[in-house]
């Protein structure tokens, strides 16, 4: 009996301690900020590292990072939540969702949230700032920006009798090198793409071509895509031709082609720079990286920014917005942005973070991490490469992906496939624009 009493007294005491502890934390009135993101695999701990770092420095704020699926799922969920009246505070939206967010009426632009002088916008890397700015004002917080680079397997290059330090720089060289890799038996195929729809967009911006009219939808609402005109058809014809020769193998959406590259079934891969950390870590061979090959005879543009930014949703308290501004300021700190880059391969979004990495000698030790910077910072600044802004961009990408699949599979000629894509895309644009008239 005595023993039982003792235990129950202990339990009561314990509960009292817990209750006191709980009330102590709640009385402090911690501001909770929900942050929905799409950073899977190795990117997830990198996000948590940032959030934990911020939370420990700001005991009165608690940013709660929540993985909510792929980019397209995160956007869909955020929309459903916003329509139901309970939007998250911060949501990570990929670049193709930019126009959707601008049209949503459900966001607060970041330039209104951050007080003047709180964050030095001039420090943000120019192509990133340009992409997400409307009339010179930044609408969403740059977070994970990337661009596409060419990854190649130096060991397979040697095996095929090629110079491992001479990756292809033009389409013609890609065809020649690819053929040698396949014919020599070094690998069953030579090349594949991650995000094939995005690679098509890269081709336009790299060669200073408009992807859609009205200056890629940045000057006015786009009504037509240019994919079925000479340039787009030329690109898809080249890719289809490579597929017929076994040089190119279609690798599926997003990151699914990485597996083939790591398994040495292909020797080259067009992929986002965000894979640079995971690929160099997992590869059992020497990885080289370089700029995407160009078509000759076209003007020089620049690679386009991909990845995502952080959007702040409408309908929350000023107190929350002040906390979010603090969080964004933390994100822009050189050491935070630099660590994010090291963990993932995404651009650190500020110039001072790049300088920090340079001073640390990071790039000297990790040369593959600098490729994307050099690519994006050595391009020409032309309106064609500032990023495409289309309302129904997600659906347009799907239409393109379907058309590309039909073309590389030989079901349709490149021209017919591109016509089918353009017809669908233009219809989508027309329907979208009617709603926003």
């Amino acid at each position: 009996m005595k023993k039982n009493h003792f235990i129950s007294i202990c339990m009561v005491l314990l509960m009292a301690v817990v209750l006191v502890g709980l009330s102590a934390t709640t009385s402090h009135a911690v501001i909770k900020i929900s942050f929905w993101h799409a950073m899977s695999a190795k990117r997830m701990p990198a996000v948590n590292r940032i959030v934990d770092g911020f939370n420990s420095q700001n005991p009165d704020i608690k940013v709660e990072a929540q993985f909510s699926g792929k980019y397209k799922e995160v956007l869909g969920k955020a929309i459903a939540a916003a329509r139901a009246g309970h939007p998250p505070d911060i949501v990570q939206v990929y670049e193709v969702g930019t126009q959707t967010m601008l049209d949503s009426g459900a966001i607060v632009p970041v330039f209104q949230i951050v007080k003047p002088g709180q964050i030095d916008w001039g420090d943000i890397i120019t192509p990133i700032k340009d992409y997400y700015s409307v009339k010179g004002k930044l609408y969403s917080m740059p977070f994970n920006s990337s661009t596409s680079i060419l990854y190649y397997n130096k060991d397979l290059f040697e095996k095929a009798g090629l110079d491992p330090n001479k990756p292809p720089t033009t389409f013609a060289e890609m065809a020649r090198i690819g053929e040698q890799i396949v014919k020599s038996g070094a690998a069953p195929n030579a090349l594949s793409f991650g995000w094939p729809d995005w690679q098509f967009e890269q081709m336009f911006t790299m060669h200073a071509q408009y992807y859609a009219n009205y200056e890629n939808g940045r000057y006015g609402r786009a009504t037509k895509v240019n994919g079925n005109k000479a340039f787009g058809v030329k690109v898809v014809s080249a890719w289809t031709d490579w597929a017929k020769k076994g040089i190119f193998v279609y690798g599926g959406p997003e990151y699914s082609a990485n597996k083939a590259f790591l398994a040495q079934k292909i020797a080259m891969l067009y992929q986002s720079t965000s894979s640079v950390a995971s690929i160099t870590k997992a590869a059992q061979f020497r990885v080289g990286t370089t700029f995407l090959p160009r078509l000759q005879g076209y003007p020089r543009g620049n690679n386009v920014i991909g990845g995502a930014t952080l959007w702040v949703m409408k309908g929350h308290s000023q107190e929350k917005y002040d906390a979010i501004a603090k969080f964004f300021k933390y994100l822009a700190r050189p050491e935070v942005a630099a660590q994010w880059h090291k963990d993932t391969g995404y651009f650190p979004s500020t110039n001072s973070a790049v300088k920090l990495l340079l001073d640390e000698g990071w790039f000297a030790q990790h040369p593959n991490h600098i490729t994307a910077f050099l690519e994006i910072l050595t391009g020409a600044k032309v309106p064609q490469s500032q990023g495409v802004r289309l309302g129904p961009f997600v659906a347009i990408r799907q239409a393109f992906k379907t058309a590309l699949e039909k073309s590389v599979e030989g079901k349709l000629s490149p021209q017919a496939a591109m016509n089918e894509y353009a017809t669908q895309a233009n219809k989508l644009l027309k329907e979208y624009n009617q709603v926003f008239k």
Partner: protein
Amino acid sequence: MVSPAVIVVIVFLIIPSIQSLYLSFFRVSPFGNRKIFVAFSNFLDLLNPNYLNSFIVTLIFTLAVVLIGLSVCLALALAANQKISGIGIYRTALIWPYALSPAVAGTIWALVFDPSTGAFSYFISLLSGTMPNWRTNGDFAVLVITLAATWKMTGYNVIFFLSALQTIPLDLQEAGRIDGAGPWGRFWKITFPLLSPMTLFLLIMNTLYGFFEVFGLIDVMTEGGPARATEVLVYKLYYDGFISLKTGYASAQSIVLFAFVAGMTLLQFKFAKRWVFYQ
């Protein structure tokens, strides 16, 4: 005691259905902040080749899943109904796949059939010399999805067939044997007719499965590709509604899908009277 059930039906079925019907006459912006009345234009849009393609894909796929699934599972259930040692292990093994979530099953199949690193692809390439790639070959993609979906449903079908088999009185079988019927004759004349109520139930459940629940597998494995080869109706609805953010168009699809599946189930019940034998 009826009222709670009625309330659940009204809140979760009737009201959303009415909302879908209402939205199907509008074109809605992604965030729902703008909408314009478009009358029947969303329904007329269903006549485009992509939707018709999705319709045909769904029919072929569901038919394959139902036919292969039911016949293979009946055979497995017959085998698992025998009195041999260790039958418990065999039965557990047969039921296992049903315990997996569609996402996990999809991941497993995607790994096994991965065009570059999958074990199954490797064996096929050893046998045929070519690597089948369901990322580009639509027919092969449909085949892989059909196999995965059928496999996933095996446990469910086997359990129900097995339970039905065990309710068949042994004296009927015995009587058949005494009258000189062989195993084949006994199966078709005694077992199969007595199984028919269960077969009808499984026919309906598998049809619904083929129409709706296969979503998880497709989302994980093919996302409807390549070139829309595996884009079944329910996946298209999801994609158009939640990814492409065309709420009005997706609502119109949901109305058509609802009407079609309801009609098909009614037809199955109607024809069932001719061949289902209730004891």
